[in-house]
């Protein structure tokens, strides 16, 4: 594969570098629309079952630790912040800042995944994982309670998977940034990587209130 050949110069089917950049971002945005529809299916299932089993969902949601959830959201927002600074660094061509901010983004992403792993582990210990060992205190409706946690694990699991892919993308960008490949006239991969990262952050922005904050007033 001639990956070296397509560094800065133009791939053959495009007329101008600007056309190539605009096409890449347009392609990523359309890909993000497919991701919106992909997560959309899960949000539909969540909406239907929350409406049908409101009380059990509230009870189950209150077993999640809201402080950890909020802190984790802040961590992810912070990683978005460092990501956008990385893109800005690439725009103005300061290679060192680009590398620093990419590393920060990767680390913050790692922290988020670590906290998520800790939460999941906590759920395993409290027997809140759907299956034969499942038990949720305070309700006889164990079935719908398992439904909540199925949705919880599916949605956060899918989001975590997208985070892992994002981390891989960031490492790829870090490696090429380290080799000085990105210049103010050619930094499309960083911009496109940023779009993907911010999208994954937006998905979490919706997941956090829907999963954690259903009925905190009923504590």
């Amino acid at each position, binding site marked *: 594969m001639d990956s070296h050949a397509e560094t800065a110069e133009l791939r*053959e*089917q*495009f007329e101008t570098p600007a*056309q190539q950049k*605009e*096409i890449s971002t*347009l*392609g990523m945005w*359309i*890909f993000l*629309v*497919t*991701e919106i*529809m*992909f*997560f*959309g*299916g*899960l949000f*539909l*299932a969540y909406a*239907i*079952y929350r409406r*049908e*089993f409101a009380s059990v969902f509230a009870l189950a949601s209150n077993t999640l630790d809201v402080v950890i959830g909020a802190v984790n959201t802040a961590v992810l927002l912070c990683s978005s912040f460092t990501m956008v600074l990385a893109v800005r660094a690439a725009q103005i061509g300061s290679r060192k800042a680009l590398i620093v901010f990419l590393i920060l983004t990767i680390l913050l992403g790692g922290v988020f995944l670590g906290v998520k792993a800790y939460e999941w582990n906590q759920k395993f210990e409290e027997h809140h994982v*759907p*299956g034969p060992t499942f038990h949720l205190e305070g309700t006889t*409706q164990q*079935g*719908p309670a*398992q*439904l909540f946690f*199925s*949705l919880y*694990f*599916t949605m956060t699991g*899918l989001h975590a998977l997208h985070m892992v892919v994002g981390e891989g993308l960031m490492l790829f960008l870090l490696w090429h940034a380290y080799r000085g490949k990105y210049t103010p006239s050619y930094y499309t991969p960083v911009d496109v990587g940023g779009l993907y990262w911010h999208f994954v952050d937006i998905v979490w922005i919706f997941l956090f209130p829907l999963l954690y904050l259903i009925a905190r007033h009923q504590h």
Partner: protein
Amino acid sequence: MITEAVQEREHYLNASYGIKSWLLTKDHKRIALLYLHTITFFFFLGGIFATLIRLELLTPKGDLVSADTYSKLFTLHGVIMIFFFLIPSIPATLGNFFLPMMIGAKDLAFPRINLLSWYLLVIGGCFAMYAMLAGGVDTGWTFYVPYSTNYSNTYVIATGLGIFIAGFSSILTGLNFIVTVHRMRAPGMTWFRLPLFVWSNYATALIQVLGTPVIAITLVLLIGERTLHIGIFDPARGGDPVLFQHLFWFYSHPAVYIMVLPAMGVISELVSVFSKKPVFGYKVVAFSSVAIAVLGFLVWGHHLFVSGQSVYAGLVFSFLSYFVAIPSAIKVFNWTATLHKGSISYATPMLYAFGFIGLFTVGGLTGLFVACLGVDVHVHDTYFVIAHFHYIMVGGTLMAYLGGLHYWWPKMSGRMYPEGWAKLSALVIYLGFNLTFFPQFILGYLGMPRRYWTYPDEFQVLHVMSTAGASVLAVGYLMPLIYFMWSLRYGPIAGPNPWGATGLEWQTASPPPAHNFDETPIVTTEAYDYAALAAREEVKVG
């Protein structure tokens, strides 16, 4: 594969040789031929299952295959024909090959993603083939829960993964087409100078991008439910099986427009070229493609009228379903109007176009029957529905696919197909098709349910007629396979523009050079401007 007889000019087929030049190609034309081979294989595989089903139904008793083999037959017929032949058929072969050429581009926006799309289809196909060879899947192509998750013990997961992967091939093709049409048109190629084939593939791409991800998440949930029992569709734990049907049909109804819209694009081209007239009401036909793509997403509930869906939702979906019928009707009227005062040639592609318009009209009108709440309660899940969607899929999309294949064969291979044999096979297919599927309308209204291994004796006469038609149809489909191969070696050499068409793809050589055009064409005329074409011909000759 192509002998030296084709004049020794540099073109995309002899630009490079060897397996690597094909399996690692980034040329949209070569990728189109790779797709052509793949989907032809899957078409004949699905056809074998269809023949076995029809043979089994020759007699009321089940005496050819066992009951669960019969379930596997109709399931695999559905899965392979829909996901591995119909959905990729026109966009991936004719669309891949000609869309860039028609807009004057050197290639698609993302050539490497285009190759990845083909690999995804092949890998998905391998999963489906593994499931088939290992023991088949017996849930029906619709995979309804709770049967597919808790009660079937066949290869549901392998098939589901196969469709999941093949779905990404469709998404990436759609993404590629949208970006290409928006950003890589030749100078002068405004939106209203685009050939209608490009318009319909653009509308199809919108559906592929917006719809396919929902079937992806549906399959993820189905496989999750089947392996980990997450309970999302399990009624014992509060899950609702009707939710699966909503998620499934949200994609699967627009999917039928993924299958039929490119066919409409081909027909617009054929009708225009073979009556040497621009398509009547160009803008209306173009916008009706996009209208079908958009409205196609609002109507899926007509598959759930008797499923336990609420009565009021049934009203909403029936009402919206009639909106999506109007653009299709407009297209048929405009094609018919194009013929008026035209110079109509009876070349094989035009025979397929006539066949398409006739059969698609019947298919579309019976669609009004199943969208009507009162009648659908009776005909839902009967042979009436089977006849309806085969009229549109086989009578419509397949006819247009064959018509398009004949129409563009000289451009793709530099060879003409044998006209006489082609006309005969078109006629055989048309007659065989009607004999196969028209009796099924009557069967359906009589109440014969679908997916039945045996049936009451009084339905046998209609089933025998249908099976007879199926054998004629099978013969009709084998003929093109034979004479297309024959034409590659012995077919007469085709010039750059054998049909006198106005598209940009006919202004370059046949078969076209690797980069489509020696220099990027400048478009100055409107779409389908035959007068300008004639003037250009004189200039060249004079």
